[in-house]
């Protein structure tokens, strides 16, 4: 039996974590499981809202089973009963299944995530707070004026040099992907204007600040926030994972692409290497039986009616749902309450499906799994995010850079593959959205193959934050 104790820091810090381990081993050994074919994985899931039961079973191809425990929630549960259920296999677990087995990136949790951004105003109205308040620290790191000043002064330095060589383009493009409520853009542009006045080169009048987001609602709100810079700002609907579709015209022109807290919110698969074999982690969203009954009861419908209603919610959103199904949701508020109850109850089952060769796996439309080989092979058992959405976005963004341009991105990044052995990095729930830490070493590797250096540094303007700053710029 392999026992994988991942939360090494927590085990040192927390007596609760340590004391949970012994009973788990006892209970597993007392179970009828074939211990020779069993893997036991212990995590400490830091997200209070997540997709996991305290104990879950995962078939590993046809060679064994993995039972995963959340140490944070194992102290007060009937371990034997949970293990018995985990060993029963996904097909025998009660509840309402919302989708077939799919790769992580194709799960309906991403439809919920999309709905959150599209219907954000309704969600915020129901919770009484803006989404920024649900971020750690209560505000986006993007609003930090000192960070903006640092970046702008560096741009001025580059532009001065290019101007001296008569190589400075007439239009100076800056792109922000994922604009939130526009506070970042406002802070940045205000600082830019002030610094430009002091600098005296009139760069502000050559500036083209492009705001890209896939939500027209979010864009409109951001546009209002920068109304006093309106003649310098354009707003574009951009699919974050395929920026070049909308922004192809910008190829080779962007001096700065600024991205804040976007990548951790994009769809991802996970791959696992277990005993030398590589697996794709498949997931299946479901509602536990009790949760499904409770939610159906609140709507006054049968549990069997939930699945089509959920699909309708995800297709048309809460506002139209109340019009389309007034018998179940009399108004938008009730539809949002239904949505939030679903979201809170949403769980994922998992299983490991063998991968027939890394090149048979498509990371993005233009990138095969071959790129993963240096990270996933030859390093023992590991499970890692592929960060497909982030990678698609990142690789689509790099060609937009001017030869002297850079990408700067504040997000939740792992900076070493080793971290996958020592912690849990998602998926979790942030308010109504999904969060996964981004596979930083993978972005670094892909960028390197394309001639860009990627550096990671702690977010300097807020020490102690989990946020890491990625900087990418052309090498050589």
């Amino acid at each position, binding site marked *: 039996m392999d026992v994988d104790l991942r939360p090494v820091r927590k085990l040192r810090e927390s007596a609760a974590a340590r004391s949970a381990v012994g009973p788990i081993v006892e209970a597993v050994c007392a179970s009828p499981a074939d211990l020779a074919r069993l893997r036991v994985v212990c995590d400490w899931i830091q997200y209070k809202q997540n997709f996991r039961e305290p104990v879950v079973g995962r078939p590993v191809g046809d060679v064994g089973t993995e039972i995963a425990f959340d140490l944070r929630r194992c102290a007060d549960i009937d371990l034997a009963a949970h293990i018995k259920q985990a060993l029963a296999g996904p097909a025998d677990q009660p509840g309402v299944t919302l989708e077939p087995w799919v790769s992580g990136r194709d799960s309906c949790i991403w439809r919920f995530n999309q709905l959150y951004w599209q219907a954000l105003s309704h969600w915020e109205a129901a919770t009484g707070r803006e989404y920024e308040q649900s971020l750690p620290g209560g505000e986006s790191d993007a609003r930090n004026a000192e960070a903006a000043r640092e970046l702008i002064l560096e741009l001025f330095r580059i532009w001065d040099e290019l101007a001296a060589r008569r190589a400075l*383009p007439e239009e100076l493009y800056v792109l922000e992907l994922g604009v939130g409520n526009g506070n970042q853009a406002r802070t940045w542009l205000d600082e830019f204007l002030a610094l430009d006045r002091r600098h005296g080169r009139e760069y502000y009048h050559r500036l083209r600040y492009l705001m890209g987001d896939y939500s027209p609602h979010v864009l409109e709100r951001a546009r209002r926030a920068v109304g006093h810079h309106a003649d310098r700002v354009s707003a574009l609907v951009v699919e974050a994972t395929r920026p070049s579709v909308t922004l192809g015209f910008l190829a080779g022109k962007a001096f700065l692409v600024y991205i804040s807290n976007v990548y951790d919110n994009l769809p991802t698969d996970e791959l696992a290497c277990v005993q030398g074999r590589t697996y794709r982690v498949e997931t299946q969203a479901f509602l536990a039986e009790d949760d499904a009954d409770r939610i159906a009861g609140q709507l006054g419908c049968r549990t069997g009616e939930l699945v089509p209603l959920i699909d309708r919610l995800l297709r048309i959103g809460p506002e139209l749902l109340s019009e389309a199904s007034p018998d179940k949701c009399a108004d938008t508020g009730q539809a949002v309450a239904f949505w939030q109850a679903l979201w809170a109850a949403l769980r994922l089952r998992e299983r490991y499906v063998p991968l027939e060769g890394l090149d048979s796996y498509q990371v993005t439309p233009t990138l095969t799994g*071959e790129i993963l080989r240096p990270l996933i092979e030859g390093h023992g058992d590991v499970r890692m995010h592929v960060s497909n959405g982030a990678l698609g976005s990142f690789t689509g963004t790099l060609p937009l850079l001017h*030869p002297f341009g850079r990408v700067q991105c504040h997000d939740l990044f792992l900076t070493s593959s080793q971290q996958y052995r020592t912690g849990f990095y998602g998926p979790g729930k942030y308010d109504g959205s999904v969060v996964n830490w981004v596979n930083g070493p993978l972005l670094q590797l892909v960028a390197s193959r394309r001639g860009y250096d990627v550096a990671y540094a702690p977010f300097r303007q807020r020490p102690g934050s989990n946020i890491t700053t990625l900087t990418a710029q*052309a090498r050589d």
Partner: protein
Amino acid sequence: MVLLPTTVVGSYSVPEWLERVKTEYYQRRISAQHLAEINEVAIKAAVKDQELAGIDIVSDGELRRDNDVDYFLARIPGVHIPQRAKADYFDYYDAEVTRPLPELAGDKPGDRPGDGQSADTSTSLGLAADFLFTRQLTDRPVKFSFTGPFSLSRRIRDEAYTEPGDLVRALARRLNAEARELAAAGADLLQIDEPFLAGYPEHVDLAVEAVNLVTEDVPVTWALHVCYGNRYARPSWEGHYDFLFPAVQAARVDQLVLEFARKGLDDLRLIRQYDWDRWLGLGVIDVKNPEVEAAELVASRIRRALDYMPADRLMINPDCGLRHLAPDVARRKLRAMVAGAAQVRAELASH
């Protein structure tokens, strides 16, 4: 020579599997001998691809080279490379010179081996052997390209020369010796690539001076290729070819090979403005874009160039090397280029 001859700039598509094998070598997981054999097979395939596409003047695809710089620096005596393993084969080495490069006996003008004398090959860079391998693969004319002294110098940390131009000149003399060996081996079309020059337009006079040192007393057709960089299929710089003129008029070369497909044909005005009376290698294929041009588009680019150059001084080629294109894309682009040239050739013949 056929009217509007088609050729390549130099490098050919490096398939993903070959990149992986090359990286294996630089991480010391396969031997140099195995890599050499694999490279030879790849070169044979590249030459065959070009022949099948109908290219008139072919190249070895530069498939032995890890990149446009290190293949040479690693062979030049006096260039020190502390770490020769690489995380990826295409990465550049950190190279340095700490003392002036050793001069070959006969390197200095007026002190070279005369006719009938053999050059000292003990410190040869081995380019003649590379050429001879390609020569015996095909009956078609072969272009052989190598990176010029100015661009090579930009990847060397110079702690030896007080006057930076002296490093460029020393490299040029070394390349001149190599060019003599290439000519002795039968090469008759040599091309100097200066991919870094566009980033340092203020040094164009030095670069031209160095080009002339390379070509000195080497009786072949000389081409000079200047582009805006093609590393990782993206330009390293932007701008226009104005910086080349009039300095490049002093270069003792027979052809100027420039990129036009990606940048547009506006810079053709310089050819007329400065009365460039030698050959022009017209870039008609964008090597940074995987979208394959239609033959008609290629033809339209050639027709436009004919407004500035007579057809008998126009060579048709891609903008730059094809190394970053997928093999199938490279093949289709070459076929489109050949078809486009054939269209215009037919039009000219019918007039």
